[in-house]
């Protein structure tokens, strides 16, 4: 019996256990060691919990009986204190040990807390401040933020803005404090960042850029390093994450920002693997769930032998802000300028309308894009990027979203239509047939219908045929 031990019961660890059991229910034991007291939950949906659209119960990944049904030895509230690679065991905080044949580190990451005076007490956020990372954090945010109360969010990255939007939905007065000159600087160029800030302002979210929180005073708020003050009953910290790599480091595995893994998701010990936020693979950036899930699928293929040729080659990153009434997608290389020599760059900025669209192409393929307030374009361009499909030649239509066929317009006078135009689809009746029928003596809609069967299918062309009857009558008078 092969013994697989997974350290971490977050989105990566839980998914891996599912993927393994989806392939193989008999040939090995699966042990999952989770430090949190909660069962696994869907971190992506936490902003919905903050926003009030979902309850904590709804974001749970598994029900009570899941582990038993799938023959998974799940141990919650269990912290791993060390790895003995020679003995192939992990040590637990209760003094016991678990043997493994394959060990998977899915330990995730923890919030990075900025060096703001008074913000951190004993390595954790001070009372009145909370990170935005766990379900406990969310419950704390929900409990502490009464409607109408001012709340400050430290960090104008993806998660910080999702938290801000959730809080605004609850009726809080939200200020986002961001140390860089524009929001989401990793994913957006300055122009997009500015339009985004303006868009958030219309939703009641104030954005303070290029300033750091210097001091936190519980119950009062933040003092910023430009001397200004942000009133806040609650401070939510979402300033980035740090991969949890302590176990790997202590075990002598190579750790840079994260635990370094190859395309087989192996560390430099072939029996020890890492996936998700704690792992560092050259093909992706940490902090997103899509890479973690793709890694889980590949590793399950490898660990169960279902597909020994499976390899993880990286995940193209598409950043999609999940915030009500703000539609933002960013992908690939967004920083190429309009004057770029080697890339084709299109950009449309509509600050008043809250829209910004930028498209970067190389060799006819989309290599980067920012789409704010352009949901149709975001969907279409993401597909082109992910699938490596050559972009349509009408770049403007692509940039603007739903491309309409050329020449499509609402109303045509019967006189303007080409003779071959099909008027009645159900019975394949063209303009020329209607004209011919008229010349043959057919009059009115009834007469034209009798002669050509136009209108006798679904009846959808009745108005058009009526217009034809009128036009033919008028034209007749004109020529008489």
């Amino acid at each position, binding site marked *: 019996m092969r013994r697989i031990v997974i350290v971490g019961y977050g989105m990566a660890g839980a998914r891996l256990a599912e993927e393994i059991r989806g392939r193989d229910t008999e040939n090995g034991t699966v042990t999952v060691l989770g430090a949190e007291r909660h069962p696994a939950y869907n971190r992506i*949906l936490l902003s919905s919990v903050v926003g009030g659209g*979902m309850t904590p119960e709804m974001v749970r*990944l598994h029900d009570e009986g899941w582990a038993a049904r799938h023959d998974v030895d799940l141990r919650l509230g269990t912290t791993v204190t060390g790895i003995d690679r020679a003995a192939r065991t992990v040590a637990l905080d209760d003094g016991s040990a678990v043997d493994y044949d394959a060990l998977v580190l899915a330990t995730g990451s923890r919030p990075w807390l900025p060096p703001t005076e008074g913000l951190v007490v004993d390595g954790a956020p001070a009372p009145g401040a909370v990170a935005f990372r766990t379900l406990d954090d969310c419950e704390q945010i929900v409990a502490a933020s009464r409607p109408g109360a001012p709340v400050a969010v430290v960090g104008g990255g993806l998660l910080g803005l999702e938290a801000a939007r959730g809080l605004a939905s609850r009726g809080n007065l939200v200020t986002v404090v961001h140390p860089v000159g524009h929001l989401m600087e990793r994913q957006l160029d300055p122009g997009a960042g500015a339009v985004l800030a303006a868009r958030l302002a219309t939703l009641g979210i104030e954005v303070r850029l290029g300033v750091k929180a210097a001091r936190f005073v519980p119950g009062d708020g933040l003092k910023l390093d430009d001397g200004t003050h942000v009133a806040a009953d609650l401070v939510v910290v979402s300033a980035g994450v740090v991969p949890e790599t302590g176990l790997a480091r202590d075990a002598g595995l190579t750790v840079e920002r994260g635990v370094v893994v190859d395309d087989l998701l192996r560390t430099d010990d072939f029996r020890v693997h890492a996936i998700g936020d704690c792992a560092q693979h050259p093909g992706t950036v940490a902090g997103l769930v899509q890479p973690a899930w793709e890694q889980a699928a590949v590793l399950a293929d490898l660990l169960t032998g279902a597909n020994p040729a499976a390899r993880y080659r990286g995940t193209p990153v598409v950043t999609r802000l*999940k915030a009500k009434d703000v539609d933002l997608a960013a992908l690939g290389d967004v920083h190429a300028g309009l004057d770029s020599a080697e890339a084709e760059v299109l950009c449309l900025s509509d600050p008043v309308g809250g829209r910004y669209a930028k498209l970067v192409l190389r060799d006819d393929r989309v290599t980067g894009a920012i789409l704010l307030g352009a949901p149709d374009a975001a*969907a279409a361009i993401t597909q082109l990027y992910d699938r490596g499909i050559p972009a349509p030649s009408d770049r403007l239509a692509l940039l603007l979203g739903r491309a309409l*066929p*050329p020449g499509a317009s609402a109303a045509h006078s019967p006189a303007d239509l080409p003779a071959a135009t099909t008027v009645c689809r*159900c019975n394949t009746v063209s303009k020329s047939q209607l004209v011919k029928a008229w010349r043959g003596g057919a009059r009115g809609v009834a007469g034209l219908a009798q002669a050509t069967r136009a209108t006798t*299918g679904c009846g959808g062309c009745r108005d058009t045929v009526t217009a034809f009857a009128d036009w033919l009558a008028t034209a007749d008078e004109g020529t008489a």
Partner: protein
Amino acid sequence: MTIAASPLSPSTGTVDTHCPYCALQCGMRMTGTGIQPRDFPTNRGGLCQKGWTASTLLDSPGRLTSPLVRVDGELRPASWDHALDLVANRVIDLQARHGRDAVAVFGGGGLTNEKAYLLGKFARVALGTAQIDYNGRFCMSSAAAAGTRAFGMDRGLPFPVADLRAADAVLLVGGNPAETMPPFVQHLRGAELIVVDPRRSATAELATLHLAPAPGTDLALALGILHAVVADGHLNHDYLTTRTTGFDDVWRVAAAWWPERVERVTGVAAADQRAAAAMLAAAGNAYVLTGRGTEQHARGADTVSAWINLALALGLPGTPGSGFGCLTGQGNGQGGREHGQKADQLPGYRKLDDPAARAHVAAVWGVDPDSLPGPGRSAYELLDSAPKGLLVFGSNVLVSAPHASRIAGRLSEVDLLVVADVVLSETAAVADVVLPVTQWAEEDGTMTNLEGRVLLRRRAVTAPSGVRTDLAVLRGLATRLGQPADRFPDDAERVFDELARASAGGVADYAGISYDRLRDGAALHWPVPSADHPGTPRAFLDGFAFPDGRARFVAVDHSGPAEPPDDEFPLQATTGRVLAHYQSGAQTRLVPELMAAVPEAYVEVHPDTATRAGVADGDLADVTSRRGTVRARVRYVPSIRVDLVFLPFHFPGAARANLLTNPALDPTSRMPEFKVCAVRLEAVT
């Protein structure tokens, strides 16, 4: 009505009947061979071009009027006795040498209830073979499987079509009725229409909201809309509590499919997914309808389940004024799947492996239940097994089966191929024996339309001399195989009465239906358990067809198309219908007016994609998949995705769209993946 007339002469008088083509079964009135539309609830006086021209085929030069037997490699006219003797003797010989299952039967969803019923009985009693299935496997099987597991009963529309007229919102998934059943569109006029189709189809043009997912990603889209229903507070909690089971497991899956993630997989904007959820939730009366576009996949049954889950979350099925349904395609696609030509079923939608069902039907047939064979192979698997003998009724598998070149090869290995048809279809043309049979206006029979209503189609004209009804063919063969003649009546009404008894107590219960009631104009939707029962126009209002009366959510997850595009085959192809043609086109390609409308196969391509391939609008081009190449004329369609091409499947020979299609089969329904495969486009060299 008995008509003494010379061959080919029309009867005198006027007969109310129904169109021979699709499941809408439009009402029409025939005077001789003249056709006028009739006010009937499904078509309300409308007819499409196929219906108007339907009688052209009655006296078409392409009509078969004599049995044909292959002699020295050529089909030559033969007498009925000679042809039937030949078939029976060969069958007896093949079964003696290779066993009963060596001879297989393949039916069709255009056959009347009587024919479908007698064909199943013929296979299981006269041939004693387990190997019978039909082309409905290629049509409704995914919808049927999903409907059965959710509701306990598969009736395409469990409500009359006319109910749709009062809808406030309709979500139509993978259906294109503006092309496939035009008069149906009248019923959608009052509603906000949401159409799911990768193409901007004629129906999508009518929509308030058009969602265009990448082919093969419908299941993910359904999960995304369901997620939005929950996240945006549209879930119908009361309905879930009182009328369903299993939502929690479905939510665990859907929770992982937030609309932004779904957008990345499907290409449908997250905002549009939320808009669809909101439109359906805001509607007082709402319907979710599916068609073949979402069903004809290797995960088709699960995909339909995903749409049913959405409908259940909104509280639609079994609620007055709302509902879930699938749009049956073939003329008798509904009845054809109920009465025993399906590999695993007995009449009345009974299961062949249910001892009580076997005992009931065997008693009606006067045979020992143990003599009935068990379930057989599904359509594609049956054809692919190259049986020693194969009898085909009402189907043109050389054009309509997936991976057509493989099926052509397998048919060439069949020792005895017998085809009963109206015209010399492509399949008939390669047969050893061809039996010419009557068509719709020349015979009596019942059809069950898309809303589960049983219709009587009466004889309106006299058949050409030289043709026989399918029932007479089966009787002729059965008696030659040693069956008592009265076990295989050739009078349609007698067969129907027996069918009604065989179906009694089954899911699709026709026990209370008779020709007399239908002649009197009764509108009878099954189940009709007794002669005084008014029928069931609206099913599920009091409960679903399970012992606990509750509908069942079924947890399903997305996995994507069986054959993703790659460098060698970078495009995806999908197939479908055009208004002017029906099914394999064997009939409609013989109608000059329809051929004038759409004379040849074509391939819809985005102009950019065509330009890259070096082909221009109107050029012939080759579309190639791992399984074959189709040559078709290029049509520029600026609204189609740049990575998608579309081909209609009505054309024969090198223009057969099914040369491309992937026979990956659904694990539950055994439906092939008609709607998506990987292809490339090339100029003709």
